[in-house]
C-alpha cells in the first residue's frame, strides 16, 4: 500500500513519456516503412520506398554528409570559443563569476528565432558588419557573410555555445584545484599543467559538450532557415519540407530516421575516439 502511494509520484510522468515519446517514435519508425501515395500522406501496406527515394536522389542523399559536416564544424567552433571562457569563469573571482555566467547563459533567455534574426541583422549585405566595413573603406562590395555555410555555422555556434560552456564548466569545477597545485609542485610549468592535467581532466566536459552541440546543430531548423535563407540545405530542412509542404510522410520519416541513425553513428565514433579510461 505504501509502495503504491510512492509509485503514484512517478506514474503520471511515466505515462506521459510512454504515451507521448515512446509510442510516437514507434509511429515514426513504422511510418518510414509505409508505402507512399498521391494526394494523401501515406498509402496502404509497407515498403522501403521512402529509404530508396532518399538514397537514390543525390539532392537528398548528399545533404546528409553536408549536415554532419556542419554539425562537426559547429561543435569545433563552439569548443574553441567556449574553452577559454569556461576556463575563465572557473578561475574567476567569485564576485565576477555570477556576471560572466549570466553573459554565457543570456542567449538561452532569448528565443532562437530572435537570436537567428539578430544574426541576419549583423551579417546581411546591408547589415551591421558589411556597412561598417564599407564605411571604413575596407571593402567595396559586401562580403558574403549570410546565406552560406559560414553564416549558418557562426549563428549556430552562437545559439549553442552555452551548451558547450556549461558542461565544460562543470567538469573544470569538479576538478580538485589541489591536483593542479600538485602538478606544479612536481615541477610542471603553467602550460604543461594545462596540457597534461587541466585539459585531460576536462575531457568528460569536452565530450558531452561536443555531443550536445552536434546533435542540437544538425537538428536545428530556424537558424539554417533564416540565416541560410534555405540556400544551405540541411537534412532537417528537407525533412520538414517533405513532411509539411509536400505531405510525403513515409519519405520524410525515412529521411528523419536516417539522419538520427547517422548522428548516432557519428556520436558513437566520437565517443570511441575520445574514450576516457579513468572515469
Amino acid at each position, binding site marked *: 500500500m505504501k509502495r503504491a502511494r510512492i509509485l503514484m509520484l512517478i506514474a503520471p510522468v511515466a505515462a506521459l*513519456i510512454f504515451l507521448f515519446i515512446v509510442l510516437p517514435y514507434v509511429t515514426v519508425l513504422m511510418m518510414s516503412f509505409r508505402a507512399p501515395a498521391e494526394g494523401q500522406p501515406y498509402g496502404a501496406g509497407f515498403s522501403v520506398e521512402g529509404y530508396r527515394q532518399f538514397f537514390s536522389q543525390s539532392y537528398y542523399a548528399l545533404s546528409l554528409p553536408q549536415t554532419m559536416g556542419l554539425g562537426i564544424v559547429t561543435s569545433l567552433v563552439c569548443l574553441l570559443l567556449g574553452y577559454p571562457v569556461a576556463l575563465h569563469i572557473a578561475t574567476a573571482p567569485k564576485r565576477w563569476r555570477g556576471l560572466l555566467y549570466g553573459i554565457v547563459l543570456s542567449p538561452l533567455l532569448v528565443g532562437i528565432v530572435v537570436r537567428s534574426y*539578430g544574426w541576419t*541583422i549583423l551579417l546581411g549585405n546591408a547589415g551591421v558588419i558589411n556597412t561598417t566595413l564599407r564605411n571604413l573603406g575596407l571593402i567595396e562590395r559586401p562580403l558574403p557573410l549570410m546565406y552560406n555555410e559560414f553564416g549558418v555555422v557562426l549563428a549556430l555556434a552562437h545559439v549553442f555555445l552555452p551548451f558547450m560552456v556549461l558542461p565544460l564548466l562543470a567538469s573544470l569545477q569538479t576538478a580538485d584545484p589541489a591536483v593542479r597545485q600538485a602538478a606544479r609542485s612536481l615541477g610542471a610549468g603553467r602550460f604543461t599543467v594545462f596540457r597534461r592535467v587541466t585539459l585531460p581532466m576536462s575531457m568528460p566536459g569536452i565530450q558531452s559538450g561536443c555531443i550536445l552541440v552536434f546533435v542540437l546543430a544538425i537538428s536545428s531548423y530556424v537558424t539554417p532557415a533564416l540565416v541560410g535563407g534555405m540556400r544551405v540545405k540541411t537534412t532537417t530542412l528537407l525533412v520538414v519540407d517533405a513532411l509539411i509542404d509536400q505531405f510525403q510522410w513515409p519519405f520524410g520519416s525515412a529521411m528523419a530516421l536516417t539522419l538520427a541513425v547517422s548522428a548516432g553513428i557519428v556520436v558513437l565514433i566520437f565517443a570511441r575516439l575520445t574514450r576516457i579510461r579513468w572515469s
Partner: protein
Amino acid sequence: MGLVTPLLSLLRALVYVFLLAPIVVVVLASLNAGNFLTFPPQGLSLRWFWTFLNNDVFIDAIVYSLILAALATAVSLVLGTMAALYFVRHARREAEAVRIAVLLPLILPEILTAIALLFFFYEIGIGTQYKIALFTGHVLMTLPFVFLNVTTSLQGRDDAVELAARTLGASRLTAFRRITLPLIAPGMATGGVFAFIISFDTFGISFILKGTGSAPLPIQLYDYLRFNFTPEAAAVSTVSILLTLVLVTVSNMLFGRD
C-alpha cells in the same frame, strides 16, 4: 609565452561580445526610426513599438504564447516535482532509467519529437485539433527543466527533516506543506521560470504542431521574417526579451538566487 596571456584575454573578450552582439543588435534595431533595417540607424524612435502594439497578429501571438507557457509550466511544475521527489527519495536501481526517461524530451532532437507527436496524434484521430498535440509537446519540452531544478534543490537537502516533522506530530501532508515545499520552492521557481521561457521561445514543437488558426509568437515572428525586413520584428523581439527579463527578475526577487 609573454604574448599568450593577452591574446587569450582578447579572445575571451571577443567571445563575450559575440555572445551578446546579436541580442544587443536586435534591441538597437527596434529603436530605428527608418523604414528598413539599415545601419547606422536613421535616428531613434519608438514608432515600431507603436506599429507592433496596433498589430493584432503579434499581440494575439504574444497573448497566446503567454497563456500556453503558463499552462504548460503549471502542468510541468506539478508532474516534474512529483517525478523529482520520486527520483531523489525513492528510486533505487531504476533511478538512472527514470532520469533518462524524464530527460528524453531534452535529449531527443526537438523537431523529430514534434514530427513523432504529429504522426501519433493523427494516428489516434485527433491531429492538431483542439491544440492538444501542441500543449502536450510544450509540457514535454518543459518537464525536464522542472525536474532538473527540483532534483538539484532536493539533493542538497537532508531527507530527515521531513521525518523530524513527523516525529513532532505533523501529518504527511503537513510535513510536505510546511517543510518540504518551502525548501524546494526556490528550485521549483527556477524550474518554473526555465519552463516558462522554454515554452515561450520553443520553435520546433510549435512549428510542426501549431495547426490552423492563431500561432505562438516564435512562429508568427518566423513567418513574418521570411518576407519582411522592417524593424517591427525587432520591436516584437525586444518586447519578448523584456518579458523574459521581467520574469527572471521578479522570480529572483521573490525567491532569491538558489
